């Protein structure tokens, strides 16, 4: 009994700490610590044969900066994030405005639209490899129906593969932009639209001067979230192209994975991913500057 009273008074004296402590300790141990550990590893080289770690100092970073694959994967990452984001914003916002019409049956179609986002990216890759198969894929058959008879080999022609990847990424993630923007759209006051319509604004003007400005913060928000996620993306590439053909779709994330998991170059891989962490941190700081993340109380 006495010990129970003591125990309860400990909890009530340190309420906030006991509530929040477990989460902070857990994240400290298994999130922050691995992140720092990774920084340490990036100064070493793992000798797999001898099972030893050799200190290299900045050696890995120096090697990265002179590695042509690093620069090509940086370019490919930038192209992928930029192009996919551009397409996803255009279609995502378009969809949000389209679904604003509240057509019959649109609820059902919206449910379909949500689905791609939760699908396993490796299976999404498999699915599209089947659809785009040069011999028997349904996609080429379909575009054959509208007269395109000599399509490129989507996943083997280095000129096209990156665009195929961007296309599949857009298929899977346009719904994300849509969901976020549509949520905001539904919360907009209807009378603004009504009065503009009474004033004789055409539908296009309505979208350009009223809808889009009101949606802009939601769009920027969704775009930055999606942008960072797409920057980290490696699983769809694993499922769809495995970085190839050659290096045509090797992004930073995939290059780091390949070095770590396939070649056991733990130090090099960690240094690569640390450069990514730095870039992501910069991106995230920009996000914080741009918009307050939480509504203030």
């Amino acid at each position, binding site marked *: 009994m006495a010990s129970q009273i003591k125990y309860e008074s400990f909890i009530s004296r340190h309420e906030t700490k006991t509530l929040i402590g477990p989460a902070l300790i857990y994240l400290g141990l298994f999130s922050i610590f691995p992140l720092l550990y990774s920084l340490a590893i990036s100064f070493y080289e793992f000798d797999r044969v001898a099972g030893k770690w050799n200190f290299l100092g900045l050696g890995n970073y120096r090697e990265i900066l002179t590695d042509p694959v690093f620069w090509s994967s940086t370019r490919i990452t930038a192209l992928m994030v930029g192009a996919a984001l551009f397409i996803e914003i255009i279609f995502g916002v378009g969809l949000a405005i389209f679904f604003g019409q509240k057509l019959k049956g649109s609820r059902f179609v919206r449910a379909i639209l949500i689905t791609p986002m939760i699908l396993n990216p490796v299976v999404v890759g498999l699915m599209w490899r089947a659809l785009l198969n040069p011999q028997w894929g349904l996609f080429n058959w379909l575009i054959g129906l509208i007269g395109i008879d000599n399509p490129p080999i989507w996943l083997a022609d280095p000129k096209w593969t990156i665009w195929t990847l961007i296309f599949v990424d857009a298929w899977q993630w346009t719904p994300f932009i849509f969901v976020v923007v549509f949520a905001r759209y539904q919360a907009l006051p209807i009378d603004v639209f009504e009065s503009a319509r009474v004033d004789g604004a055409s539908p296009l003007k309505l979208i350009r001067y009223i809808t889009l400005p009101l949606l802009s913060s939601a769009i920027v928000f969704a775009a930055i979230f999606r942008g960072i996620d797409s920057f980290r993306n490696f*699983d769809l590439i694993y499922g769809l192209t495995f970085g*190839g053909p050659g290096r045509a779709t090797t992004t930073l994330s995939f290059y780091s994975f390949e070095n770590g998991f396939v070649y056991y170059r733990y130090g090099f891989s960690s240094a690569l991913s640390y450069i990514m962490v730095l870039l992501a941190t910069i991106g995230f700081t920009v996000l914080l500057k741009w918009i307050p993340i939480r509504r203030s109380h």
Partner: protein
Amino acid sequence: MSAITRTTNRIISYLTLVVIAIVGLSPIVYLFLLSTKRRIDIGDVPPSLKFEWAVIFENYKEVLISRSYISSTLNTIFITSIVVALSLVIGLPAAYVFSRVKFGRSEQLSTTILSLRFMPPVAVAIPILLSMRFLHVSNTRIGLVIPYVAFSLPLVIWILIGFFDEIPKEIDEAAEIDGASKWRTLLQVQIPLIRSGIVVAGIFAAIFIWNEFLIGMYVIDSEALKTVPIADAGLISAQRPIDWNVAATVGVVTLVPLLFVSMAIQKHIVQGITAGAVK
């Protein structure tokens, strides 16, 4: 606007709706279709819509029994339950504090937690493997659960903060006047009110696990311990040729559990995305 243009507009709108539905759904339907074919019939374009039960049975038997996807699925469900439960037990009180109590660095702390959600998984995969080896839990379920909880927590906390923020503070004050501690208020007053938030956060932790294979490939070696996505990554990576009918069946077996979940709780998924991204 004349009646005719209005009708044409309607028709165009509905056609667009149908096209959207087809673009969203047809790749998944195609995967289902491939999983019902013999290997030699994969090359038929367009695929025939004749179904032979014997072939379907053969494909699914191969995947579920011979490639032991039944046990992988059960294993994934088991790991998902533990990770979701742990993340909620640890995350709920923390989210409650972030929503209610202002202390020195609370704002900075909650942003740091959010920023962990953006961490590239490749950046921690190797240290996690080494840490799990150090703790002698690599290639065990515990070795998966520990990092998975760490990945789920930022998401769970962030989603729950959004839901706690929507509960009026007066409720806490009333409980406080009655002499209830914060812990009691959380357990007896808040948790019943925030049930849908708990469901949403749990779903997002579950979706993460059903799609995660990078950390899993590093930590797990034995087939028996692999979750469905880890098994998939070994079987159907873009690097490895495989029989398409079997691969498609693997895909379907992977997708079906989440597809069912997503149909049942579509609304919650939307809530989660908007809560996790916008609030």
